[in-house]
């Protein structure tokens, strides 16, 4: 929010009032981050849990701050002259993504509450998480390239540190380094692209770029095209689109589990939001270029992600997280489909991405929450560790089965099914029949590994005879589950069930224009 309109003329009125309510959600998260960091100095070691609850409270307030904005008609930091373009807009698109991001951060916070008491440095952890969430919440509202890049960096830089936060863990450090290097490359490429676009159009505001790109002088055309391409490549990196996906599995495995959940949902949402903003708002002129390119990337991404997820060996260490990581690459492919379709048939298709992202956020966070639960007794988190989960924790097993089938898109995961239907329908509507068929094949591949995992949950536990009565089996010793983790599972499962009963809650975004 620090970026004022860069091209404001000197003659204009430089003092403008700020609509504080509109910028409240990211601001509250940022302020909460600072408060927690300072409070860490004064809170005694044994009361460290207070920091966590403080951070959660901050996120809840930030989510609540979205409610007064629900009309979706606020904007601030506007140019006082000329087109009157604004740098910060709280339209429906912004609000939905902010809700997704802050809600995702909230579930992540619930999942990490217990870890911060033992393995992770509490003050730093909460500060980093909240800062990253603040950046991620700022990003969907930004309507100029400078704010966009700043928001993206505010969201990403703390994430590197979060990934590497496990003390004395070699893999964690390596994961952070990989993530950092690939991300910095992406930023550098993107900044180059942004500067080219600025050079060609003379503005950073997305709507003005869209107008100016129409009549770029012939000698600058090459520059503008290169700028557009490089900017998109930068965002493709962030969203882990094939071929820029290689950092994902190692980063997820090395990161603390809740942070992997955070990256898979909020990190993805950030990348996609940026991609949507630049493609649909700033570069509609080049739709004939980025449309086919995104369609091909979507097909590649889902195929590579799903095939790699299919090849995970269930008995290998961390196979569960690896599978979730690769499947998130596959899901990113589905998310790209409506954006590609928007190039052919208008912005309305973007809603399908938003609806799918909401569904994916709920069920993927839920799946990670159950994974965090299982990781407490089986630290290496292999898929085979989930065998017989139904016998020991029926509730968690049923929830996990539900989440996995939602991700696969089969009943009883009705919301997953209809979210996929909206994506399919965007593709069919745009005439991208071949992409729809590729996606169909991918859905079948994905079903194979999701269902295999689901079947493992309900198999008889290892060592117990398959047909024995429950009384014959040794009673497993149950460890108490932290309240926050249970709460996270219950919240996500309840959200999934409610959405399955009334999918309109998320699918309504697929029906109207969000901008």
């Amino acid at each position, binding site marked *: 929010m620090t970026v004022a309109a860069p091209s404001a003329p000197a003659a204009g009125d430089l003092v403008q009032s700020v609509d504080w309510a509109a910028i409240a959600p990211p601001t509250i998260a940022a302020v909460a981050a600072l408060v927690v960091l300072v409070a860490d100095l004064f809170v005694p070691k044994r009361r460290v849990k207070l920091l966590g609850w403080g951070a959660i409270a901050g996120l809840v307030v930030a989510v609540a701050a979205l409610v007064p904005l629900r009309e979706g008609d606020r904007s601030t930091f506007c140019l006082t002259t000329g087109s009157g373009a604004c740098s910060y807009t709280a339209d429906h698109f912004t609000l939905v993504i902010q809700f997704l991001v802050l809600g995702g951060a909230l579930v992540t916070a619930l999942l990490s509450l217990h870890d911060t008491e033992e393995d992770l440095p509490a003050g730093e952890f909460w500060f980093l998480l909240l800062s990253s969430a603040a950046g991620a919440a700022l990003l969907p509202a930004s309507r100029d390239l400078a704010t966009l890049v700043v928001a993206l960096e505010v969201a990403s830089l703390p994430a590197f540190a979060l990934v590497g936060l496990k003390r004395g863990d070699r893999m964690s450090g390596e994961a952070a380094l990989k993530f950092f290097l690939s991300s910095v490359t992406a930023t550098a490429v993107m900044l180059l692209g942004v500067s080219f676009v600025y050079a060609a159009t003379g503005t950073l505001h997305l709507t003005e770029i869209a107008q100016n790109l129409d009549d770029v002088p012939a000698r600058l055309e090459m520059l503008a095209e290169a700028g557009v391409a490089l900017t998109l490549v930068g965002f493709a990196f962030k969203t882990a689109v094939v071929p820029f996906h290689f950092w994902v599995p190692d980063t997820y495995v090395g990161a603390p589990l809740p942070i992997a959940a955070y990256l898979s949902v909020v990190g993805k949402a950030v990348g996609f939001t940026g991609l949507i903003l630049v493609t649909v708002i700033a570069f509609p002129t080049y739709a004939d270029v980025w449309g086919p390119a995104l369609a091909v990337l979507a097909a590649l991404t889902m195929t590579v992600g799903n095939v790699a997820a299919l090849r995970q060996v269930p008995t290998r260490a961390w196979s569960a997280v690896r599978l979730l990581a690769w499947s998130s690459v596959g899901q990113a492919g589905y998310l790209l489909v409506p954006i590609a379709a928007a190039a052919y048939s208008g912005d309305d298709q973007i809603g399908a991405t938003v609806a799918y992202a909401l569904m994916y956020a709920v069920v993927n966070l839920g799946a990670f929450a159950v994974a965090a639960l299982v990781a407490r007794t089986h630290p290496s988190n292999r898929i085979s560790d989930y065998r017989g989960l139904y016998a020991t924790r029926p509730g968690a097993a049923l929830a996990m089965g539900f989440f996995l089938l939602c991700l696969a898109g089969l009943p009883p995961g009705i919301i997953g099914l209809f979210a996929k239907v909206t994506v399919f329908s965007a593709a069919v509507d745009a005439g991208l029949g071949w992409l729809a068929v590729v996606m169909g094949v991918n859905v079948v591949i994905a079903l194979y590994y999701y269902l295999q995992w689901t079947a493992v949950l309900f198999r008889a536990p290892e060592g117990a005879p398959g047909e024995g009565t429950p009384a014959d089996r040794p009673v497993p010793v149950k460890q108490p589950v932290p309240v926050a983790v249970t709460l996270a599972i219950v919240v996500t499962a309840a959200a999934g069930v409610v959405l399955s009963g*009334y999918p309109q809650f998320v699918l309504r975004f697929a029906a109207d224009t969000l901008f």
Partner: protein
Amino acid sequence: MIDISESVMQFLLAFLVVAPLAGAAAALLPAPPGLRGTSPDQAVLRHGVTVTGAVLAAAIVLTLGFDHDRPSRMQATTDIGWIPALDVRIHLGVDGISLPLLVLTALLTFLCALYSYFNMPAGPSPKAFVALLLVLESGTLATFAVLDLLLFFLAFEMVLIPMYFLIARWGGEGRRPAAWRFILYTLLGSVVMLLGLLLIGLKAGTFDMVALATDNGRDITTSVQVIAVLAIGIGLAVKTPMWPLHSWLPDAHTAAPTVGSVLLAGVLLKMGTYGFVRIALPITPDGMHTLAPYLAAFATAGIIYGSLACLSLARTGARGDLKRLIAYSSVGHMGFVLLGIATMTPTGVNGALFANIAHGLITGLLFFLVGAIKDRYGTADLDTLAGATGAALYGRAPRLGGLLAFAAVASLGLPGLAGFWGEMLALFGAFRPAEGLSRPAFLTFMAVGAFGTLLTAAYLLVVVRRVCMGAKPAPDQPVLPDVQRYEFAAWSPLAVLTVVAGLWPAVLLGLTDPAVQKLLAGGKS
């Protein structure tokens, strides 16, 4: 027949779809006091019988309240919005085409629940078994009751997970690969079908089947219709199954537990043919017109292929599995159904719908009987069963042998039993196909199909000879228990209905014919 108010009818139809789902959820909870029974297992199996019984009762009352004078009208309709964003409405209704299928589903599921109460297949806890059975029932009933394309797709997908687990958990040898093959094949088919459904919905602007059927494809260009029918047809043909997309079926049937096979053959396959009649024929008639000769050709190939496969399995020394044999015979019988649909004439489509029901009754009975034989002998391998001269079921368990012979004869299409009318009408339809379809081609299909009935008779008679007849059993052979009382209860309704439908086909044809006439004519009649 009896006058029931429309709102009660609406409730009954909604009850049919929702009650099994609620029952499935209840099956997972511990039994309330007073309903605990002798053991938790017994209590939950009894719960299954109660719920499916209630659903069957509701289906029968629905049939009684159905206005039999106007079976072409959608009755007991409910139409409420559900997902405005996708234009999905909860639109339920029943007409002469779907009513017999609804009753068949409710009946077969009830009989399966009853049979499992006394003879639970070996496997993990019956709790999950009952819950899955009920979800399966809800999914199939919903498929026949919904009138919205996307809801149809949802119901179509709903049966996959329960059936997968029924095969993979309670099945016999080779159940895992068979279950995988079943679910991957059908899912791939249904995803392709979804694309076709979306194409229709987006081009025509609505997903409502009644509106689309009334429109009769006038808003959709022929090329779009051809693509849509191709996509939808592939999905439905996998489920039906149509040769050459049938290869999941024999494995799934061989590995599935008895009740799984009964439901798979009795109702799940019908979802495919029902889709052809309800969606492909009225909504995209031009596309169907283009593709009908190919469908008929594949159907005829299926008839011959199924019978030849059965003949080779029935040979001495082929080590043919009886369940596999009946599965292949399903491929042949469904070929007749598809041939009837492909003629696009009222005669052919009526025949197809009749053959649908007849196949559900007869093949359901056959799978029950083969399951019972497998229980008694420990194998369904024809060579092991028959030994040197034959299994001599007539001598060792006369009632079981008699029933098997009855079901086999019904299956081969003996006049006077249910199997006869459907196949005959389908062949009649092929004799004079709809206008614009190549008559010589269909005459060829008819002749080949008629030859298929001969082959069918041949292998079924071979099976009867090898299983039912044989040398007089030696006195030292263990005594085989004959038909038990519960088996009798589960099987006799099927046998009785087979005879009734054979002797009085007008019961069914009177229901389906007006509805078919209306479907083929679009909104005109």
